């Protein structure tokens, strides 16, 4: 919405307890002074709580006429600049203030290699790594897992910093040899982390999901049959967690793994009896399309969906990144929530979104096919 001077005049009059005429005169003088001071005395105007206005000179530079391709010279000129005050800046950015810059893996080709390895079902070198890590996560409790992760991150950081500080040419020969090894090590660590993260996250979220369900919402919105099985699920869950504390987890978890299908679905366990077709949410054309082009992808969900309250300025893409590892998978969250979301770009804050647990064959952030599929679904949705 746009606010004009007239609105400001009225509000100032109201807040300062003066007549409109007076506040109008004040505001006019206020902006006049800013203009006069910045222009004529070539100074800057600093207003507390707002920022600084300043006249800057822009040097002459060459440019190209976009239409004719002709080279032109933009002469030296002045422009007015406004730099907001720090506090105001922070206040405006508050919705995003929790986000931080983070460092991506150094090598550009890491992603590609990773996805290739994933396709091979992590068969080759990394087998040992992943296997041992899974054992650790299964046998120990969460705190140990976290330690493992933190240690690995530290190792990663050290490697990266080492890598970047070695710039001497003398070192180059050695470095080249080292680099290969470092790349391999980084790859292994990342793969391990991805596997671990995926494994544990889905487990945790599922725990939280079922608990929330029971505590908060007596009314269930998913399926008629699910609530019944849900109660049972939660009981088994409690039993299981009790078992865990006694240290008898191992047998149970191994049982799951052998019982699971050939594709590794980490959280496929006896609890997931409430499995039903996700494609209820798709329309027929889309199902046909998916089956024709991506026959390997299973359009099913497991268990009860996790409920998330949408914060202000949080979008489906961000949720998709948090829960599935890539923002392109937002389409599935949308499709799952079409009953409440009218338009994916206009979701009121505070809406409770259900995040379905999807099969890994559908939402694997490392698989190009999955990303392509999500992209195709998005294109389809946009056409609608």
């Amino acid at each position, binding site marked *: *919405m*746009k*606010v*004009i*001077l007239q*609105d*400001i005049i009225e*509000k*100032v009059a109201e*807040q*300062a*307890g*003066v007549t409109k005429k*007076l*506040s109008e*005169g*004040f*505001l006019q*003088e*206020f*902006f006049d*002074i*800013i*203009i006069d*001071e910045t*222009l*004529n005395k070539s*100074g*800057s105007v*600093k*207003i*507390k*709580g*707002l*920022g600084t*206005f300043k*006249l800057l000179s822009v040097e002459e530079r060459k440019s190209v006429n976009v239409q004719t391709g002709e080279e032109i010279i933009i002469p030296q*000129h*002045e*422009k*007015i600049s*406004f730099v*907001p005050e720090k506090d*105001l*800046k922070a*206040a*405006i*950015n508050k919705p*995003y203030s929790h*986000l*931080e*810059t*983070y*460092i*991506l*893996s*150094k090598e*550009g080709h890491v992603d590609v290699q990773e996805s290739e390895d994933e396709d091979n079902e992590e068969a080759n070198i990394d087998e040992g790594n992943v296997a041992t890590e899974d054992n650790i996560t299964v046998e120990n409790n969460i705190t140990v897992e976290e330690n493992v992760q933190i240690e690995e991150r530290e190792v990663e950081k050290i490697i*990266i910093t080492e890598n*970047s500080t070695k710039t001497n040419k003398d070192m180059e020969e050695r470095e080249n040899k080292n680099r290969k090894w470092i790349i391999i090590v980084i790859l292994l660590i990342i793969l391990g982390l991805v596997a671990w993260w995926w494994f544990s996250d889905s487990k945790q979220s599922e725990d939280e999901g079922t608990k929330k369900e029971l505590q908060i919402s007596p009314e269930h919105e998913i399926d008629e049959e699910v609530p019944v099985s849900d109660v049972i699920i939660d009981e088994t869950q409690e039993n299981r967690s009790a078992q865990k504390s006694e240290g008898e987890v191992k047998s149970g978890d191994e049982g799951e793994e052998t019982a699971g299908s050939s594709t590794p679905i980490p959280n496929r366990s006896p609890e997931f009896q409430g499995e039903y077709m996700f494609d209820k949410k798709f329309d027929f054309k889309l199902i046909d399309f998916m089956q024709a082009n991506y026959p390997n992808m299973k359009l099913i969900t497991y268990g009860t969906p996790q409920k998330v309250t949408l914060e202000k300025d949080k979008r489906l893409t961000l949720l998709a990144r948090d829960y599935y590892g890539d923002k392109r998978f937002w389409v599935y969250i949308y499709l799952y929530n079409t009953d409440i979301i009218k338009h994916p770009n206009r979701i009121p804050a505070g809406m409770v979104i259900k995040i379905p647990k999807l099969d890994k064959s559908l939402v694997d952030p490392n698989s190009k096919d999955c990303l392509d599929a999500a992209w195709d679904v998005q294109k389809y949705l946009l056409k609608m």
Partner: protein
Amino acid sequence: LNTKELISELKKRLNHDKDKVDVLLDSTVKIIEQELLNNNSVGIQGFGVFDVRKKEERISVNPITKQRMLVPPKLTLSFKPSTTLKERIKKVNA
């Protein structure tokens, strides 16, 4: 020109006492800030438009270390001078 000088200048031009100018300036700044925080753009005729813009997240590369960084999206305050103000700037120069 800082806030103190601005207040005395306003006082001189308007013939008000200092307290009144203080209150007016304070509420003006607060109201503009409030409007901006409510995601409204504030347009002042003859002066310009204050606007909150969203900058999308992006990947930036440190040219020396080749390190890739994911810079998060952010909301920034931008000020666009109006055409009349731009004209005046040109005139001052000429």
